[in-house]
């Protein structure tokens, strides 16, 4: 097949399958993967704020001993301050990511690395919760011991090692869960982008 000769048919091809609306509002909402991801991120942003508010009431709902409040809220305040930083970055990210007007390689490269960077930010944000969970776990255990008139020094060696193992287990689980979460939601799209970028490499 001679592609140069085919250009004449290409140039006069019918285009009546394309329907241009009379108003933009007649089109459905954007369905591009990037727009879907932006919507996901916006929802997650609200969920993260809700979760942060919820964590503020945990001492009251989990029957912590009042003497542990100071320790818990000190850890909570640290988490809130760092969370505000992260949540602002996430917000700026989903407002800014746009596409398509630069050349293909630049557009896709920017989107790809922005996503990779944001995935790493998600991981860091998740890891930030580890100290808070551990502080809550310690305060909760201490409160239960206090109810029985005991404290940490009265725990047996086995119980102490079990608590240590539990803390390491929780930390390990969080370190595994966060990357799994980002891989599930963003991994496929970034892999596809990377594939196209590899195709554009110089030969």
């Amino acid at each position, binding site marked *: 097949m001679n592609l140069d000769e085919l250009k004449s048919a*290409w140039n006069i091809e019918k285009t009546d399958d394309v329907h241009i609306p009379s108003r933009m509002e007649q089109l459905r909402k954007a369905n591009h993967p990037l727009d879907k991801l932006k919507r996901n991120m916006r929802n997650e942003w609200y969920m993260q704020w809700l979760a942060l508010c919820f964590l503020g009431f945990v001492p009251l709902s989990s029957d912590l001993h009042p003497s542990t409040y100071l320790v818990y809220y000190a850890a909570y305040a640290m988490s809130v301050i760092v969370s505000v930083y992260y949540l602002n970055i996430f917000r700026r990210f989903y407002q800014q990511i746009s596409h398509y007007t630069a050349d293909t390689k630049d557009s896709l490269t920017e989107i790809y690395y922005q996503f990779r960077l944001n995935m790493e930010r998600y991981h860091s944000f998740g890891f930030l919760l580890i100290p808070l969970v551990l502080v809550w776990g310690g305060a909760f255990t201490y409160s239960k011991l206090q109810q029985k008139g005991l404290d940490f020094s009265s725990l047996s060696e086995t119980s102490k090692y079990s608590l240590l193992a539990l803390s390491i287990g929780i930390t390990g689980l969080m370190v595994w869960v966060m990357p799994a979460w980002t891989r599930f939601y963003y991994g496929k799209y970034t892999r*596809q982008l990377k594939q196209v970028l590899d195709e554009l490499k110089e030969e």
Partner: protein
Amino acid sequence: MDQLTEQEFLRLIEKHKGILHKVARMYMDTPQDREDLHQEIIIQLWKSCNSFKGNSEFSSWMYRVAINTAISYFRKEKKRNDTVAYEQAGEPENENYDPAKDRQLELFYQAVQQLNPVEKALIFYFMEGLSHRETAGHLGISEVNVRVKLNRTKEKLQLIIKQSGYES
């Protein structure tokens, strides 16, 4: 140049809707997917409208946004028959068209479905008559790279067409 109004924008899209038709035919293999891509490209063009400064041709700007959208509009994996059979090529839609050329074009579109997104972009720009330099500018790669990749893609396309049983 002042920002385009909605009506001016839609008039320009109407004028250049051939780009939408061709990009969608190259990147999507079902009418439903093509219609979705038409809409998606129009939305992305509208969202990017403030970046069109009027320094370049509207069509040139539209090429870039349309191809970038199509390339990154990854569909969910679905089963489809990737083999192209000449016998399956559709009938010409318009009697005024040269039937032989129309049939070739139909087969060409079917064969193109087996190319990867970057190869499709290269063939699209080639068919639109863009020079290597212009194609390189749109894709963000060197002219040499365009030449090498385009030659390789044309050979691949010819092979696919040949394997479908087509003989010129």
